[in-house]
């Protein structure tokens, strides 16, 4: 695989392959010294045009554990502030000999545009409202491994996953929908009409505007972050009303089946979508998602950079 730009480009075979590799990487991460020489001598640059805490650090941790050299490009201290274009920036950094760019940008499609301008691999760490494929892979991995299932094209079969909140502006939702349904899960989107994409007819999902109606049937409750600025766009009346209809409070926590997993991509807006302490939930997966993120991103880097031919010590 040359690039990882979207779940649909990866395809179900690719998803299963990454999940399998991630199992091996999780084993590496349990070793006393969680580091292997697989990507020794390869340079990986993280190019983050948008703020990020967990994704950037997760990728950089993953790259270092595979012994890649990592560089961070921070927009605030770069020539982008002097007006250098995206194309010139990527051509300049590419000229230094880069194996892969890990890219986050506020605009959809940037990974496709960049791959026209560089020979390096592009790994999408979030483009606009479009895709965040490693998030979907780590989410799938988290559900699969928690349930003790093995990687396969039906490893999420029989599960009903509710994704709740601002689907319209969510790259996580667009990626998760593709990954979860590819692996056999049923997905229910729960949101007011204003927070759904303009046209979802034909999507392989069920849709509900009422969390109360569906929460009792969920095997996974996946809460999305509700951004405060959405009110100014007249998408919801105010955050209190949103919380009342879609927030996870004590009452809804009791309605959720006991076995159901609670997930959130972070960062959480406590007091908006999350009205309880998630740590109080028996199947809170939120920290586990972050931990699994490193294993999954190691798997992605290894797959994209052809570590299978150059490296050793990973696949036992």
């Amino acid at each position, binding site marked *: 695989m040359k690039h990882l730009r979207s779940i649909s480009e990866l395809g179900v075979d690719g998803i299963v392959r990454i999940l399998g590799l991630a199992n091996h990487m999780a084993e590496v991460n349990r070793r006393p010294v969680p580091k292997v020489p697989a990507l020794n001598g390869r340079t990986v640059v993280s190019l983050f045009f948008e703020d990020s805490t967990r994704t950037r650090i997760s990728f950089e941790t993953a790259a270092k554990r595979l012994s890649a050299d990592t560089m961070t490009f921070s927009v605030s201290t770069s020539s982008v502030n002097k007006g250098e274009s995206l194309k010139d920036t990527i051509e300049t950094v590419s000229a230094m000999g880069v194996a892969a760019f890990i890219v986050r940008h506020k605009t959809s*499609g*940037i990974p496709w*545009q960049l791959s026209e301008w560089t020979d390096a691999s592009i790994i999408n760490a979030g483009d606009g409202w479009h895709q965040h494929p490693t998030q979907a892979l780590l989410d799938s991995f988290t559900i699969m491994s928690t349930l003790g299932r093995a990687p396969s094209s039906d490893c999420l079969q029989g599960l009903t996953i509710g994704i709740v909140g601002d689907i319209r502006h969510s790259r996580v939702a667009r990626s998760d929908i593709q990954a979860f349904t590819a692996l056999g899960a049923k997905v229910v989107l729960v949101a007011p009409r204003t927070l759904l994409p303009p046209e979802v007819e034909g999507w392989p999902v069920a849709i509900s505007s009422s969390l109360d109606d569906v929460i009792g049937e969920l095997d996974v409750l996946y809460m999305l972050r509700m951004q405060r600025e959405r009110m100014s766009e007249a998408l919801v009346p105010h955050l209190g009303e949103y919380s009342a209809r879609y927030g996870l409070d004590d009452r809804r926590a009791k309605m959720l089946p006991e076995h159901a997993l609670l997930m959130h991509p972070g960062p959480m807006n406590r007091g908006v979508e999350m009205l309880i302490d998630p740590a109080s939930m028996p199947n809170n997966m939120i920290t586990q998602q972050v931990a699994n993120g490193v294993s999954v991103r190691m798997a992605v880097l290894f797959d994209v950079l052809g570590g299978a031919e150059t490296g050793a010590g990973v696949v036992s």
Partner: protein
Amino acid sequence: MKKLQLINIRGGRILDETTDVQGRLADIHIAGGVITEIVDAGSKLPKADIDLDATNCFVSPGFVDLHVHFREPGREESETIETGSRAAALGGFTAVVAMPNTEPSQDSRIVVDFVRAQGVRAGLCEVLPSGCITVGRAGQALAPYSELRDAGVTLFTDDGNGVQDPLLMRRALEYARDLDITLAQHCEVSSLTVGAVMHEGSCCSHLGLPGWPAIAEELMVHRDIELVRLTGSRIHFLHLSTERSVEMVRRAKAEGLPITAEATPHHFTLTDEALRSFDPVFKVNPPLRTPSDIAALKEGLRDGTIDAIATDHAPHASHLKEQPLDQAPPGMLGLETALALSLTELKMDAQAVVAALSWKPARIAGVGDRHGRPVAVGESANLAIFDPTCEWVVDREAVASKSKNTPYHGRTVRGKVRHTVFSGQVVVRDGVAQR
């Protein structure tokens, strides 16, 4: 001004408003900028400086584009009046209406005079400056219509922006009525298109790009039809893109309201699916829409609801287009491919295509006295000579425009301009610009 040439055009079929759809085989002599003789094919003609071979070609009145952006003054990195005029001539156009979103915008006599003069200097087609509806296209105050009309402006538009305020638009129409000018609206209710990159529909939902809904165009089409009904003034609708817009215009015309409309080749040949490539070359305003919109535009052109094919030729330098989709400016080239796409895609006979490219827009632009005329003795020699069956491949590296943002790169199309005669001068000969 160069000496007016003696030109013979041999072997072609005259195709104009007066011929039947087959055209009429005849040879033509041009002297002093005017058609002086038309004889049966193969008959003797006076000696000429230039003999143009029109075998397999139609000889039609030159085309008139109601909608081009030549970027001068202000954005000469993307196009100049000279390079744009060359693209126009190669596309068979002998007159173009230059949109007013220049820097400074065409809201004063000095800018309008400059644009016209640069067109004369280039000498490749007649460049007709449009005027702004509002000062600076800002939607706040009426532009000086009378002053601009005295400078020869007949079409007024804030193209790129719709006039948002219904009161201002009402006043503009009322004031324009006495001056015998035409207002041309870019129909877009801007509060519905904030940040929009592409058509709002299933494709934008999938790609996570902000959508430009059809209703943003249709609301303004509807409003302006009602304002025309109220004021009795003329309006021309620029680049209609939706099925409902076409239907509203069809009904309004049936009522006899003084409304005209245009459609662009890109809106009747490309859909929003093109954005799946994330290539900003496909970003345009209004956006590429859906197959049912394409079908409605084609039907509108066939039944005359839509009067004219206009290109909305909108060059942008590579460094402007090679930006994130939200920052890349909207627009695409059109002049050099308009005829071919129309002949290839519209399933209309060549005469109907030329009507929409020539005499109908000539009248909307107020230049029907010298463009879109019958090919007849005594008429000004503004002619397009084109082979309707010639197949060719669009190549962005080969365009005459200063920018390369054609969405048709690599596409095989049918129909090519062989020669263009503008004001009695051969400006394109065998597909090559002569100046």
